[in-house]
Structures are given as C-alpha cells and as structure tokens.
C-alpha cells in the first residue's frame, strides 16, 4: 500500500534482546557512532523545525501571540478547519468500516484491485487532488454552468474545501481496518449470527470491540491530515479571508504578508495538534497490544 508507511502494528521492544546476545551486539564505538549519526540527523531535520515553530511564535512576546490567535480571521480559519475535519472524518469512517466489512468478510472478484483503488488518493499529488474538483465543479467544469444557474458554489467555497479534504484523507481508516479484519477472519461473526444475533448486534458486540483500537488509530491519523491539509485545499479555496481560509491557508497568508510572528502563532496550534496526534497514536499502539502481552505472561 502506497503513501503512508505508518501502520497500526505490533511493535515488540527488541533492543535489549539484541544487546544481550553477543552474536548481535555491536562494538560500543559502532553503537555510539550509529546513535550519534542517527540522532544528529533526527535533531537537524525533525527536532529543529519543531522547536523553531514555537520560538518564532513567541518572538514578539506572548501578547502578539495571543492577539494572532483571537483575531477574527484566525478564529474563522480555526472554525473552518474544525468543520472540514468534522465532516470528512465521519464520512471516511463510515466508508472505512463499510469497505473493510465487504473486503474482509466476503469473497469476490477484483478484491485486490479494489484495495489498490482505495489507496489511490495517497499517491496523487495534493495539487492534483484539488485540481480534479475544479475540473468537475469549477466555472468551466462539468457541472459549472448547472451550479451557476442554481446559485450553488462549490469551488472557492466551503463545499470544495470539504471535498478536497475528504479526498486526501480517503484511505486512512480503510487501510487500518482492512488488513486487521482480514486477519481476524469471519468465524466470530458467523458464530454470532448462527446464535441468533442480528447483523447490527453482531457488528456492535463482536466486530467493533475487535477493531476499536485500529479504528481509533485510523481516526487520529485521518483527523491530523484533515486539519493540516494544505495543497489540495489551497487549489479549491480561493483564499477569501474569514470565509474560505483554513488554518494552514491562514498561516500562508500571514507569512506572505511578512507577519511572521502571527503566522508562526497559528502554526504553533497546528504543531501542537501534531504533537497531540503523536502522543495519542503512541498511546493507542501501546494500549492495543497490552492485552496480548498480558495473555502471553499469564
């Protein structure tokens, strides 16, 4: 599956095992050289940008920082970002469950092809993702004349932003659920049905508890991308301040107007969102595999 390498997966801690075994233990100088090189790279390319966001945000003091966040255009951008995520995440959640149910619980022809198609949005450039909706709903697009007659705006308006967000976050939840539900098979569900449970009861009481952590994991990643998307949304937004600007677009506008402290202030909210996402993600990974670990011990 292309696009994102982070998948919900068991991650045993193996380092101490490798270090205890003389056959897999490296000489101390090798160890410190590799850790040194790896961590320097990590610090320069990952840690430094993260710190820079917060340092730049507070460069002109806490007052400027707070002003940038409560300014009406910033608040409108925050609202729009929340709205786009609040629509796209639930829709992609329903899609993810539905696709995983069909693919994991039933046999049909073309299944692998379907899985590849579901992954497709990950390999499409965000700019192209925005462009396709301009071609369909824009003034010169397929439905352009019809939409104009009925006074409906999709492109350079909120619906376009929501559509572009749905596209770029399309595979997130499905791709977490499909491999997990395929691995789980359908024995438990079949037992539930043959014992007289309805389809909905089976899903609610049998399937959902089995997939809840993977589901949550997918939702967290989907939400982070939905709130942070820039390229696709930029194409369909039209950049109307206070109306069609999401938080990342607001950052861009402030930055291009040389209001660096304000740009970084809004950016720092998005960086916080990223940190919260990583914390939740790590928690879910840890939580999801704890019961298994406990079973192995007992």
């Amino acid at each position: 599956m292309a696009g994102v390498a982070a998948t919900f997966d068991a991650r045993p801690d193996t380092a101490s095992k490798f270090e205890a075994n003389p056959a897999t233990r490296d000489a101390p100088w090798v160890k410190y050289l590799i850790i040194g090189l790896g961590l320097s790279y990590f610090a320069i390319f990952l840690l430094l940008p993260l710190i820079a966001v917060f340092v730049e945000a507070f460069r002109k003091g806490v007052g400027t920082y707070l002003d940038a966040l409560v300014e009406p255009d910033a608040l409108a951008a925050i609202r729009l970002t929340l709205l786009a995520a609040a629509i796209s995440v639930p829709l992609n959640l329903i899609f993810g469950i539905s696709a995983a149910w069909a693919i994991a619980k039933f046999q049909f022809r073309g299944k692998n092809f379907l899985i590849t198609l579901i992954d497709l949005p990950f390999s499409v450039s965000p700019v192209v993702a925005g462009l396709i909706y301009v071609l369909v709903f824009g003034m010169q697009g397929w439905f352009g004349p019809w939409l104009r007659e009925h006074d409906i705006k999709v492109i350079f308006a909120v619906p376009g932003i929501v559509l572009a967000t749905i596209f770029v976050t399309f595979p997130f939840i499905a791709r977490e659920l499909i491999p997990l539900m395929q691995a789980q098979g359908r024995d438990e569900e079949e037992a539930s049905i043959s014992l007289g449970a309805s389809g909905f009861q089976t899903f609610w009481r049998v399937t959902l508890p089995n997939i809840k952590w993977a589901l949550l994991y997918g939702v967290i990643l989907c939400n982070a991308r939905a709130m942070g998307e820039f390229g696709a949304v930029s194409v369909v937004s039209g950049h109307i301040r206070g109306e069609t600007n999401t938080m990342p677009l607001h950052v861009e506008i402030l930055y291009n107007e040389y209001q660096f402290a304000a740009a970084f202030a809004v950016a720092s909210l998005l960086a916080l969102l990223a940190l919260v996402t990583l914390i939740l993600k790590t928690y879910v990974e840890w939580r999801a595999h704890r019961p298994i670990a406990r079973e192995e011990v007992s």
Partner: protein
Amino acid sequence: MSGVNKRVLPGFGLSLGFTLVYLSLIVLIPLSAVFIKTSTMSWQEFWDVVTAPRVVASYKLTFGASFLAALINAVFGLLLAWGLTRYTFPGRKIVDALIDLPFALPTAVAGIALTAIYAKNGWVGSLLEPLGIKIAFGPPGVLVALTFIGLPFVVRTVQPVLEDLETEYEEAAASLGATRWQAFQHVVFPALFPALLTGFALAFARAVGEYGSVVFIAGNIPMVSEITPLIIITKLEQFDYKGATAIAAVMLVISFVLLLVINGLQAWTARRTGRAV
C-alpha cells in the same frame, strides 16, 4: 466454512455497494476528469505544454530532488531504524514516537519552519552562509523540504523487519567466524533490502507530489527552483485549465506507475520476510 454462494454474514450488498459508490464519487470520477479534459487537446497541443522548457526544468528539479531526498533518507533512515531497534539509549521511546512527525505536522507548518531555519539569518542558514552555502530560496531548499517529509518512510518500513529478524542467522554467521560487518553485509542486509527499497520508493513517491512544504523554502524561481505541482497551480491561477490538466495527467500517470512499483516491492518484501508490510 461458507463459500461464495452460501453467505452467512449479512450486509455484503450494502457494504460493497456503498464502498463502490463512494469510491466512484470521491475518487474515480473526479480523477477521470483529468484524462477526459486532456483528451480534448490535440496531441501536438498536449506535447507542447508538457515539454515546454519551464515544465521540463520543473520535472528535472522535482524528480532529481525527490530521488536525492529519498536516497538521503534511505541511508539515515536505515541508521535510525538500526539504532532504534538494536540499541538501548535514554530517550529512545521519545525519538521513536517523534519519527512520525512529518506525517502529523501540516506541510505548510513544516515549510515555514524549515525556511526560518535555513534562511541566511536562521539557525542553520547563518552557520552555512559564511561557507558560501545557500540553502533556502534555491534548489537545495527543495531538497531539504523533501528530505523532511520523506524521513519516516524508510525508518518505518525497515524497523519491523529488523525487529522480526531472528538472532539465529547472525549467531550462525558469528560461529562460522564472520565479523559483525560481514554478518551485516551478507546476512542482515539482504534480508532488509526489499524493505529498504520499499521505503525508498514510498519516500520518492511522496516527494514527487509534495507541494506545501516546498513552496515556502524553494524561492520558486522559474527554470531554477520551481517544482511541477507549483506549475500546475500557476497555470490554474492564470485560468489555463487545459495546461494545468495536461501536466496533472503526466503527474498522475507517473503516480500510478510508482504505485504499481511499490505494490510489487511490498509483495516482494512480504515474500522475503513472511510478513505483510
């Protein structure tokens, strides 16, 4: 237990039907618009747009910088994956969790942060300035941004394979008199190679389409530091929908090819390691 014709579980028609309708409406039909729009152009018209000198310069930069960034990430991603799975050191768990930052951090935020650091008055830029090295607002800036966004891919594809690798192979190598380097070269590396290549391809594919983090740091000078996705945006802003769509069609075909290559590589990795990636 239940065959194709005897379905015990309910909801096949509903779930598959919804999946196909949603997939078509959101992804397939809009994507087809690119090819349908492109097909209204004559071949000559299409060819002139996609091979214009400024566009060709953007391909060279986009693919060249993406390739280099993926290569850098292959080397350092392998080092990081090795360090994180093989050694214990303080703060390892935090480093491990932060590796995914480029997935979680919005690209626009990454873009302005990297620009602030690598501009000539920035933390790193001011150190390199006296040496005559200029990163931001030129092609090296593109490379830096693409390296940032591609960083997690190699680490996350190589890590699980390294964790699953049984110690027996290296024990056998050691007992047969191999040095650690020989064991790595002849035993560990061949086992890692498919995953490493998959991570490289994922990082490359992601970098080719990247826009948000690059536009801030690149300087966007035509023929010099303009990436292909930016050319699409520029054409759209000039209401040149045909031109934008033609270049998008080229990008899409390349994405599809990369997707097929990556699927092939992942199948290879799974066969080699007996593990789905």
